[in-house]
């Protein structure tokens, strides 16, 4: 079993990639990619901590079951919003849409 720091490092790197994508990309769907990556980083972290604890507990897996479901729901609603916006505006460039004009 790898030490906790290895799993934590992977989770942090994923988090970093997600934050980078979130802040520097303009396409709304790509931002959704980044958000999903951040969700996965957090889930990995929770499972790793719960498993590599002394003694291991099952609560981590319970929590991650909930967060996986929540993330899927949030992706579904977010994608509906993106479809709706694209129908109204014909583009999904968030830096232009954030002005809330029109």
């Amino acid at each position, binding site marked *: *079993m*790898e*030490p*906790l*720091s*290895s*799993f*934590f*490092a992977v989770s*942090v*790197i*994923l988090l*970093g*990639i997600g*934050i*980078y*994508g979130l*802040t*520097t990309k*303009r*396409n709304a*769907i*790509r931002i959704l990619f*980044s958000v*999903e*990556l951040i969700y*996965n980083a957090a889930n*990995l972290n929770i*499972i790793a*901590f*719960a*498993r*590599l*604890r*002394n*003694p*291991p*507990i*099952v609560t981590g*897996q*319970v929590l*991650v*079951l909930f967060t*996986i*479901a*929540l*993330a*899927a*729901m*949030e*992706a*579904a*609603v977010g*994608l*509906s919003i*993106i*479809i*709706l916006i*694209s129908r109204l505006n014909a583009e*999904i460039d968030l830096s232009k849409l954030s002005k809330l004009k029109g």
Partner: protein
Amino acid sequence: MTDLLFLAFAAVTIGAAILAIEARDLVYGAAALGIAFLGVAGLFFLLDAAYVGWFQIAVYIGAVVVLILFTVMLVGPKMGETPLGLKRVSLLAAILVSLLLGMTGALANATAFPGQDSCGSGCDLYLLSTSLLKNYGVQLEFMSLVMAAAVIGALVLSKTDRGQ
């Protein structure tokens, strides 16, 4: 053996994640995201969380990636992005990441997490299910309400006025 598996899964996950946000074509990005999810599922399997791993595959790759692909094909291809002049924001992101990574070093010495090789009751499927239903039953019911709200919300948002 587990060392090699861990390195493989970690490399696949991180590589696919970078591909996902850097790929020019969104469909390739979505496929790369699916592979990143597969890598994370593999890491779950390494951590003795088999049930959660299969649900990660079923929900994320089986549903979220499908939704994303479907949306990308409906909304239309956006080829590439002109680079933004957000140097300050990416710098902020980089600083945040390096701060977090620095904490990893501190965590490496944490003695509260020695890590056991046998999982015992921490990964027992029976315990997972009874704990989910007994200790977290109320939360489970709330989750179903939230799911119903999300489904109704998505349906309402994507409704088109067909005109009677």
